[in-house]
């Protein structure tokens, strides 16, 4: 096993349903209000260009604001890393470059794209899910979990 097995987490259907619905509501708000897709990698990428930078900054600020409110209220959602912290650097680079090449990430392709049955997004989501399953299988499952 190359990387440690992550700490066990339990299936949380109610929080998942409610949280997932809120994610959808946020994305729907942006689409119905502004006609724009809530794709986080696309919004972050767009910050480098002046075009429509105002709403993109506001979207990111809104995302950070929630974290800030949680922090002020003392709410500390679970956050458990497993593996050496330095691995976060290549992981981030791969995720960023990959999302830019693919034109979207878990939010743009995974939620917004799937919800309108876009063939591009279905292909992207199936690919990144498949590769992620294989990556985890090789690095953390073999020899560890069974």
């Amino acid at each position: 096993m190359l990387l440690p097995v992550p700490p066990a987490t339990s299936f949380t259907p109610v929080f998942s349903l409610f949280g997932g619905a809120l994610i959808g509501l946020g994305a729907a708000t942006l689409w119905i209000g502004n006609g724009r897709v809530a794709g986080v990698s696309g919004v972050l990428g767009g910050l480098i260009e002046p075009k429509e930078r105002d709403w993109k900054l506001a979207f990111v600020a809104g995302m950070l604001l929630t974290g800030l409110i949680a922090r002020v209220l003392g709410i500390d959602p679970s956050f458990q890393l497993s593996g050496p912290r330095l691995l976060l650097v290549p992981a981030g680079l791969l995720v960023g470059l990959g999302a830019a090449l693919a034109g979207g990430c878990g939010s743009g392709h995974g939620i917004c794209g799937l919800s309108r049955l876009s063939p591009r997004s279905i292909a992207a989501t199936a690919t990144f899910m498949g590769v992620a399953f294989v990556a985890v299988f090789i690095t953390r499952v073999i020899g560890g979990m069974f």
Partner: protein
Amino acid sequence: MRVLIALIAGALFSAGLLISGMGDPAKLLNFLSVGPRWDPSVAVVMSAGAAVMALGFLTARSLRKPLFTDAFAVLPRHGINLRLVGGAAMFGLGWGLMGLCPGPAVADLVLHPGPVGLFIVPMIIGIWGYRLFNKSKSAAAARVGVSV
């Protein structure tokens, strides 16, 4: 108004990520490792999110334009190519490595700036690097009169 809408949308989006547990890399990794300890939460989150967003897309169909801007963005549906699949594969590899991806990383940043910063800075460098590379490529092509 459109700035306020984006702020609210971002706040809701991020609240959904944190409430659903998507901010926890262990939850993502436990979804990605099928076995006796498999945690299917991610599938429920994505399905619920996509279902509500589908209602949003359907509602928007009856509108001529968005409430606060002039037009809906035109979204590509087709064009499955090596760039899309290769990019998605790179993304999957990075995601599977540590269990973090762009949405949860932004949602987590204020709560865990240290480790999330280690991830989000190279992530943004990757996204911007690709954009700048593309821009300089099309600028160079424009100089020699080739369209890309």
